[in-house]
């Protein structure tokens, strides 16, 4: 063996020389060892991860809850408290039965003022915009039938154009107090209707998408929410907004 050969420390088989013409396939590892290795590695990884998870999870949840809470607060104009209502088997309830699948259930967040009177319902929704799906949350007053506010949760719209739907404060402000169903109008074509929202020049598609999202969401659930509202609701004993799997 020449010293020029790579010396590979600790290599399992060790490159023992076997002449130019003889060649053996590298030895196979016994099957049980393969199983054991991967199983052990998996188990160890599971152990490590569960530890990290336990440490980080509360923080992540807390952050998510805070973000959602802020969004709800913003679109409802600062409620004193908010409560999550789930739609379980076609009925809305703040306290779903324990065996209900709340993770995938539709939900709304209802805000109450200091007196415990409901001030509005926050609904989240998403639809394709110009680039990809835009997700927003908006506040709705089922009594008056007006939108109270809108906030973009997630969008990949073009920076500088489409992202005006979240960054352009005049556009965002337009959603405070507009009558539903909303009507989008291009600049200079407004007729003074209460339902009008001015589309953003250069981002007509993105801004129209917001209007469509709100209108569609209300078309689907508006009636039920209004019924719920009319049925008279009061804040249940403290249940924080549940961020999990909101759609």
């Amino acid at each position, binding site marked *: 063996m020449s010293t020029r050969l790579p010396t590979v420390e600790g290599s399992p088989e060790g490159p023992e020389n076997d002449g130019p013409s003889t060649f053996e396939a590298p030895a196979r590892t016994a099957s049980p060892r393969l199983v054991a290795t991967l199983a052990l590695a998996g188990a160890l990884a599971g152990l490590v991860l569960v530890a990290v998870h336990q440490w980080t999870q509360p923080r992540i949840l807390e952050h998510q809850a805070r973000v959602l809470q802020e969004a709800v607060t913003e679109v409802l104009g600062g409620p004193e408290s908010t409560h999550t209502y789930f739609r379980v088997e076609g009925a809305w309830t703040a306290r779903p039965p324990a065996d209900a699948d709340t993770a995938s259930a539709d939900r709304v967040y209802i805000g109450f003022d200091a007196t415990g009177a409901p001030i509005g319902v926050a609904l989240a929704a998403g639809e394709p915009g*110009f680039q990809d799906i835009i997700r927003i949350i908006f506040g709705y007053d089922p009594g008056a039938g007006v939108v109270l506010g809108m906030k973009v949760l997630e969008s990949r719209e*073009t920076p*500088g*154009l489409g992202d005006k739907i979240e960054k352009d404060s005049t556009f965002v402000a337009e959603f405070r107090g507009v009558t539903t169903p909303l009507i989008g109008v*291009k600049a200079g*074509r407004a007729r003074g209707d209460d339902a009008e929202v001015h589309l953003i020049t*250069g981002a*007509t*598609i993105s801004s129209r998408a917001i209007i469509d999202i709100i209108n569609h969401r209300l078309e689907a659930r508006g009636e039920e929410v209004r019924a719920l509202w009319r049925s008279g609701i009061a804040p249940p004993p403290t249940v924080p907004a549940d961020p999990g799997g909101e759609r």
Partner: protein
Amino acid sequence: MTERRDGPRAGREAAAVEGGRLALVASPHLKSPDSTPRIMWTVTITLLPLVAMSTWVFGVNALLVISAAVLGAVGAERLLGAGGAIRDGSAALTGLLLGLTLPASLPLWMAVLGGGVGIGFGKLLFGGLGQNIFNPALVGRAFLQAAFPTALTTWPDPGQGWGIWTGDLFALPFFSGRVDAVTGATPLGLMKFEEVSTPVRDLFVGTTAGSLGETSALLIVIGGIYLAYRNYLNWRIPVSILAVVAGLSSAIHAIDPARFPGAPFMLFSGGLMLGAVYMATDMVTSPVTNSGAWIYGAGIGALVVLIRFWGGLPEGVMYAILFMNAFVPFIDRATQPRVFGTRRGAPA
């Protein structure tokens, strides 16, 4: 016999068969009169009426924007290209075509940048004339549209008089100026976002908002016919584009006339005519085979209709051409001519 004699690249000496040296040049010794510079300059000249027309419609800005684009293109060719490559006329033509696709109010520095990017990234990087994949003018325009979407979709109203100055034409490089142009919506924008149609007569004559070169379909068609007659463009390309656009849009228009405009509007609005006649036909970036030309043209036509009818943008000519440019090598590969004495399908 040790005096130095000439090497293989010897220069010429006295002409005359007896005594002097004969020349050895490979056959054939006859040559058609067409040459690459002649093609390029001819196309450029046929575009000049269009430049004049756009100046008439949009004022001096038009001339300034076009000149800036030409300056950018020629400057880049000069700085980065092979020495003296400017004289073959292709860079000037690229700049001119780029200029014709821009709005009249564009800051001039952007037009210069577009020309530079078009030639630099769109052409010289590939080895210069003849080697590029994408239409350099459209690469420049696509770059500008993606970089400065607002400026590229701000269309001044036409017919504000000769010699008007609009927009932030003279903004400093890298900065925007004040926007004070009287802007209007283009016919395609009106159609897409307001479902308002513009009379075809206005489109044909060219007094609508839009880019500089969209002004007159008539001049473009005349130029195109002349060039096709001279065999400087492959007539199959514009014919297939326009036929597919007309056919598809008529069919879809019949289904929902309110939402989808019909063939005349589609043919004469936006950049379709300029694109079909002058940009899709760029020899370098279109298929070299005739059957490929049909496929390529049909593809552009279909994409224009797709983007205009269902896409997010009001106009899709530029993207359609760029996208089909990308397909050209594949189309060329797939449409090799059937060699004499072989059957089609035999390995080409």
